[in-house]
């Protein structure tokens, strides 16, 4: 009985997320094809324009443009109605064939290869920042909530201010101070000229090149996480079970531990959402710092109006997001016995 309830919970979640995922992929595919302003056409025009620039012709209207356009549409399969194009694209996506990106024209690169190339960089940068800011933010928030008084007030105001700072602006400041002025850190990207290896020289260079964006994201991240955690801990401290425990004479330290553990549950969900969002990279941070991650890839693909690349990358992002949320819901069920036993429903 107990087991079947949890199984039913998992299955219902799985069904909902699959439907959502299918919808996301469908809209993602359909949008550029039905959008006013014809993004597909603009994409082809840019492609032709690039060819002309490459051959030194400059942007000029060729009389045969229309005919070329028709031919290109036929070759790329864009002349069919969008609804007919969708199934084959979707099946290919499921199979792992994500189509080709024309953003690097004249090179034609498989999108999956591109993602596999850029994703590790993004994860290497964002995952440690997310984990560190989550852990530090949780402890800081709980500390403020339990401490109260003057420290809490000052700390909270500071954190609220910090949380309002746009990450990319703080990064600009840090680059200016530590990179341009003090020359402690490189001012852009990664050690591109070095051959990746497991030597200390390469690793330390890599770390040096990730230091600034990481510190920035951790700083702003701590602001957000700790404000949330503080609120949840205060909410827990005011709840009936803690009051009861207090009247039972349990020491503050134990109460704090109870409150902390229960307050972690919503923080955990938020972590999962952020974990999923991580796969899109942080566009502005990567763009400003010239860091070759998913954000830079997305910027490049969007700049070239490469609809095939955009579709695949956005669908991949949506997949990871929904997968992360699904996992979070399942683990949530494990963490909270009330859900596991089917006593309460989670939206």
């Amino acid at each position: 009985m107990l087991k079947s309830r949890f199984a039913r919970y998992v299955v219902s979640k799985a069904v909902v997320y699959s439907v959502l995922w299918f919808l996301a992929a469908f809209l993602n595919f359909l949008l550029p094809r039905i959008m006013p302003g014809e993004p597909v056409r603009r994409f082809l025009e840019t492609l032709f324009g690039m060819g002309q620039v490459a051959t030194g012709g400059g942007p000029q209207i060729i009389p045969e443009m229309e005919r070329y356009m028709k031919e290109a549409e036929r070759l790329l399969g864009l002349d069919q109605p969008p609804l007919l194009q969708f199934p084959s694209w979707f099946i290919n996506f499921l199979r792992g064939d994500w189509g080709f990106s024309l953003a690097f024209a004249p090179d034609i690169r498989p999108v999956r290869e591109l993602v596999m190339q850029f994703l590790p960089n993004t994860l290497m940068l964002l995952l440690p920042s997310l984990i560190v800011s989550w852990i530090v933010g949780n402890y800081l928030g709980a500390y403020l909530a339990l401490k109260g008084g003057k420290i809490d007030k000052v700390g909270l105001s500071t954190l609220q201010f910090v949380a309002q700072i746009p990450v990319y602006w703080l990064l600009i400041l840090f680059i200016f101070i530590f990179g341009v002025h003090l020359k402690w850190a490189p001012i852009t990207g990664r050690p591109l000229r070095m051959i990746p290896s497991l030597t200390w020289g390469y690793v330390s260079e890599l770390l040096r090149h990730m230091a600034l964006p990481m510190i920035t994201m951790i700083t702003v991240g701590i602001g957000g996480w700790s404000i949330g955690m503080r609120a949840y801990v205060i909410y827990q401290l005011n709840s009936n079970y803690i009051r009861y425990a207090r009247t039972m004479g349990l020491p503050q330290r134990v109460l704090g531990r109870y409150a902390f553990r229960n307050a972690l549950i919503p923080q955990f969900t938020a972590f999962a959402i952020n974990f999923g969002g991580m796969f899109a990279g942080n566009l502005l941070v990567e763009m400003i710092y010239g860091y070759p991650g998913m954000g830079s890839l997305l910027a490049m693909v969007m700049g070239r109006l490469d609809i095939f690349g955009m579709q695949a990358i956005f669908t991949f992002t949506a997949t990871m997001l929904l997968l992360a949320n699904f996992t979070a819901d399942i683990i949530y069920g494990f963490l909270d016995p009330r859900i596991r036993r089917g006593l309460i429903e989670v939206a």
Partner: protein
Amino acid sequence: MKPSLPVLYIFSKIRSLRETLLGELFTNRRFIVGFAIFLGLVIFGYVGSFLAYSDPWDTSYYTGVPGCPNEYRFLPPSLKHPLGTDQGCRDIYTWLVVGLKNSLWVAALAASITTVIASSLGLIAGYRGGVLDDIINFSSNFLMVIPMFIILLMLLAYIPPEARSSLLVAIVIGILGWPGPTRVVRSMVMQHKASDYVDVAKLMNFTPTEIVFKEILPNIASYVFLIYISSFSGAIFAEVGIGAIGYGPWDAVTLGRTFNNMLGGGAIFIGAWWWFIPVGLVVVFLSYSLLLINLGLQHVFNPRLKLTLYAV
């Protein structure tokens, strides 16, 4: 509570409900500080762009010579150019104030759209219930999961630049903001639906429309206002973010466009602190002031929150 200004003390003594609420608002330190910063920024944007020659694109007005000679690029601050000039000999100060003014407009419009959509959907879903409620609740839950910024970027990337007017951008930002606020309104309406005054209104044969708009809406008006403020802040962030990447409005100079221009001009690498520090400070103080206003309003509107006041 001890009022901070004698004038406001007298003001708060006036007994009518609206006046006491206002009086209480203006004795709330957070609200006063936030409101002052916000008002200051609005005045800065308006008076500043009124005093500045209000065409940010014009270079000859500032340099006095047609075109853009090299010696007028990247000028440091001076009396004529309070924040220097950019790579195209344009006055950065003008970009800042005009950008601020236009961004405020974009955000105000976007926040209005969000608030209208969220409160109507929330009222319908909360009061009617049933299938409609299921649909609205389900889709808002779903959309809450996906970062709004990615959807926004995707939509705006597919729109051609010449069609990306500030009106359109404001509408897109406004429409995309609905899920969170709708959930808040919905849960508020569901609470109020079960209260006595709604039962009385039903007994008095009020139609559902009357109950929703004449009875429930005035009672949750304070929350609707809070939603407006937080949507405003979100819209500022969204506009600056997409504008900085280069997918913001193209017909007007906004804060996002100013950011984009600053990144494109390589302000960091030439060490032009007068270029990037003011823009960022304006954004930070704008959203911080809105947060303070929000906290102050919550304090006054919902005294029960006092316990966890600083918890939001």
